[in-house]
């Protein structure tokens, strides 16, 4: 009984010492920025004209501009049209289950501080089935960038009401027009404790890139609501925010104080099409930093003991 019937399998191991979850970065010297060709994988399966195409194109731009390497990027998504994202990116990626991309991404972020973790998904994924995870990932301030491609509808399942559908939206599940008060993603994020909250729209590529860059540079949970039109099931939803369609693209006023939570909340409350830009940004210790500190303190206390010696001490107390 005290023997292992299947002894330790000799599987690939690392050369890095087991001190913690830290892993040695590879030398990045003289690598060229990745071209669009190098970072694109499968041809997207989205409908022609879908807003999600621009978000993908700008993600590629971001990778190129910020000289990120394939192996350092991890793209994670749940389920939905928008959540197909990882297949289209030539980098490590995971396509998880509906609504649970954030905890999955947290597992990566918390155990692998060397990686950039990006999560993409839809409004249903984020605020309906994944609503609770959104709240808790925000309050824990787990370091990652989360882009919700908000199309106000369930695209993949073909036009049901989404938690962001406006009142009166006629869907297959609300043929008389929806009546449930839509969620305001920005207010939701601010009150949940997100430390970076921004809004952009797929029709303004420069703005999308600017928001992605700022989000990526933020040390914490950075959230972007990116309006991304579903041309199939909610065409024209965002015309009023698109100058080319006779709408108005209004940025967050220059005098807005992004550190002012109440001002951000008020700004987020403006009726559609509302404002675009960074609504709220603050610095609060990340979950990553809190855990790292806990680890550092405990490692200091156990001194230079090997793992088995630490365990031995616990066992000695049970004798």
């Amino acid at each position: 009984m005290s023997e292992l019937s299947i002894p330790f399998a000799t599987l690939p191991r690392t050369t890095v010492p087991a001190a913690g979850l830290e892993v040695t970065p590879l030398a990045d010297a003289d690598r060229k920025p990745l071209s669009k060709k190098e970072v694109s994988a499968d041809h997207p399966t989205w409908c022609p004209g879908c807003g999600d195409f621009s978000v993908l194109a700008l993600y590629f731009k971001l990778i190129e501009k910020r000289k990120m390497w394939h192996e350092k990027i991890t793209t994670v998504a749940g389920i939905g049209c928008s959540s197909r994202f990882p297949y289209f990116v030539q980098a490590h990626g995971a396509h998880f289950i509906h609504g649970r991309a954030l905890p999955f991404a947290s597992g990566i972020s918390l155990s692998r501080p060397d990686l950039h973790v990006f999560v993409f998904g839809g409004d249903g994924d984020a605020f309906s089935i994944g609503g609770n995870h959104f709240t808790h990932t925000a309050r824990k301030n787990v370091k990652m960038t989360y882009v919700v491609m908000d199309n106000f509808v369930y695209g993949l399942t073909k036009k049901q009401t989404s938690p962001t559908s406006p009142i009166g939206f006629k869907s297959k599940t609300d043929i008389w027009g929806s009546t449930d008060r839509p969620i305001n993603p920005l207010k939701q994020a601010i009150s949940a404790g997100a430390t970076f909250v921004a809004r952009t729209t797929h029709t303004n590529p420069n703005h999308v890139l600017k928001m992605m860059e700022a989000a990526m540079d933020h040390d914490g949970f950075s959230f972007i609501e990116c309006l991304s039109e579903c041309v199939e099931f909610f065409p024209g939803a965002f015309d009023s925010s698109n100058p080319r369609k006779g709408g108005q693209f209004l940025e967050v006023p220059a005098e807005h104080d992004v550190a002012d939570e109440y001002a951000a909340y008020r700004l987020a409350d403006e009726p559609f099409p509302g404002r675009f830009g960074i609504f709220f940004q603050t610095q609060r210790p990340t979950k990553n930093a809190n855990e790292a500190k806990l680890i550092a303190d405990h490692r200091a206390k156990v001194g230079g003991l090997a793992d088995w010696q630490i365990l031995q001490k616990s066992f000695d107390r049970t004798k």
Partner: protein
Amino acid sequence: MSEVAAGPAPAGGQSKLTKINEAVIRIAGNSQDGIQAIGGFLARLAGRSEQEVMTFMTIPSTISGGPSIFQVRIGSGEVLSPGDEADMLLAFYQHSYEDHINSLKLGGIVLYDSDHITPKPEWLENYRHVGVAISSKTVEAIGGTGRDKGKNIFALGLLARIFDLNVPKLNKLIEERFGGKDPTVVQNAVTCFEAGYNHQLQDLLKTYQLQHAELKGHTQVVMNGNEALAYGLLAAGVRFGAGYPITPWSDIMELLRRELPKYGGSFIQCEDEIASISMAIGASYGGRVAVTGSSGPGISLKTEALGWASMAEMPLVIVDVQRGGPSTGMPTNIEQSDLNIACFGGHGDSPRVVIAPSSVEDCFYTAIEAVNIARKYSTPVLILTDQGIATRIEAFIEPDLKKICQDLTPDLTPIADHKPYDLKAPDGITRHVAPGTRIASGKYPVVTGLEHDELGHPTGSPKLHTAMTAKRRNKLRRLGADLPVPTTYGPNEGQVLLVGWGSTQGPLREAVDRFRSVGDAVSSLHIKYINPLPNGLDEIFKGFRHVFVVELNDEGLYGYGQLTSLLRARYAEPKIRGIHKCDGQVWKVKEILERVRAAMTPSRPS
């Protein structure tokens, strides 16, 4: 209490010493009285004396307390179960006395708190009654504060005198337990203990002395199953976990939360069980096998993500500390009713590994094995324990930690090319490369829950779905072929084979011993690897006329419990039948004997 020989002259003039080789003591009171602490002391003492020990406890599921028991069986020989009948009942209240008198063997001793208990005249004849004013004596001993806190330690003193326990060792344990910032706490404890020890037990004539255990020359460690399992995960090299509190799983997550930072790891308390398994899978994908776990309803919540791990072939360890179900069920009672959800829970064909440890010691080693199987076969592995094994304390030989502890830091060495779901891999097993690994070909993998091609990209191809489904199934068949074939306890031929799984191994073996002692050809077989099953079980079944699967679950609609059904489906063997119960209690050996005998007696036509 098996007596060995008449003892020497009475100690202290009050009693005579009788040597015994084992004792079963049941302590009954309310949970806030420190019942578990007395039991814990006795178990630790036994461990330090190289005696075998097994405990069993019940705790109320409400925090405000309520009736609680702790039973401890200490022996110089092998101890296989916590014992059917107690030799002594230590009762603190009238309800403890009345509710547990039945657990005492005829002629057994009731040691009762006469401040709270009035003996029943009709029981005086069958049981030796020894009353001690435990509550008021405790108050008196510690200076009349009017509070009887410490009466458990007073009672421990009484037990130490009656069973001639090793007082210096006990004193040391008391110091270790209460030694803290406030020295008066230890002082009070020692005072209570001494008061109990020195109490004159006028009407108790005998003092018992446990035979010394045959020294095995090994140091023993003493802990419960949850602790052993958590330490096993640490030894295995697990450095990340995520969970949500639920009894009886919480102890494991609390221990890991407390210990992991010392090893450079983290355990995250999540918003729910779905987030927990998702986070653990994310960390596994990050390169190092992670753990999650739960009990009861929490396991149900994990099944969708478990299916993803099966589909994406991601290593993961999931601990299921079973409790009475369904729904909130009986949170603090034992049951083995999660075998089906462990093996089959979730939609679709989603093969996974299920292992059930049989003892506290086995919890430690099973945890390591689960991690290694998860890595080797790139698969989710469920460890099925239960409320009984989780909370019972056993002593076992200290493992050689230096030899056993593993380092699983991920390997991020750049590689030339990679196909995560390579259908032509020589062993058919997926090897994931963790993000952070540079792949020279520039082709990076996606891990996914959609049916996929060899690179992880979605496919609707009938051929690929068939091939990938077979790939996921065949690797576990391969594991099945690699698993050790279990051996029978007792001869491998006979009349009856009792088949068990999980925490019931001890009582089943004791039942075999008792059957054999009266000449019945009964053996037992314990199945640890439940999914996949090891090969060769059919050969073992051939050696017996009857095969009874003894499990703590319901016989179900068709008359067969969960493992019984699995074995019948697997072997299409009509002689496999089940013996089940779901009363939330562990098997008593006596019960097993009766149930087997009843099943063997053909019912007479009326």
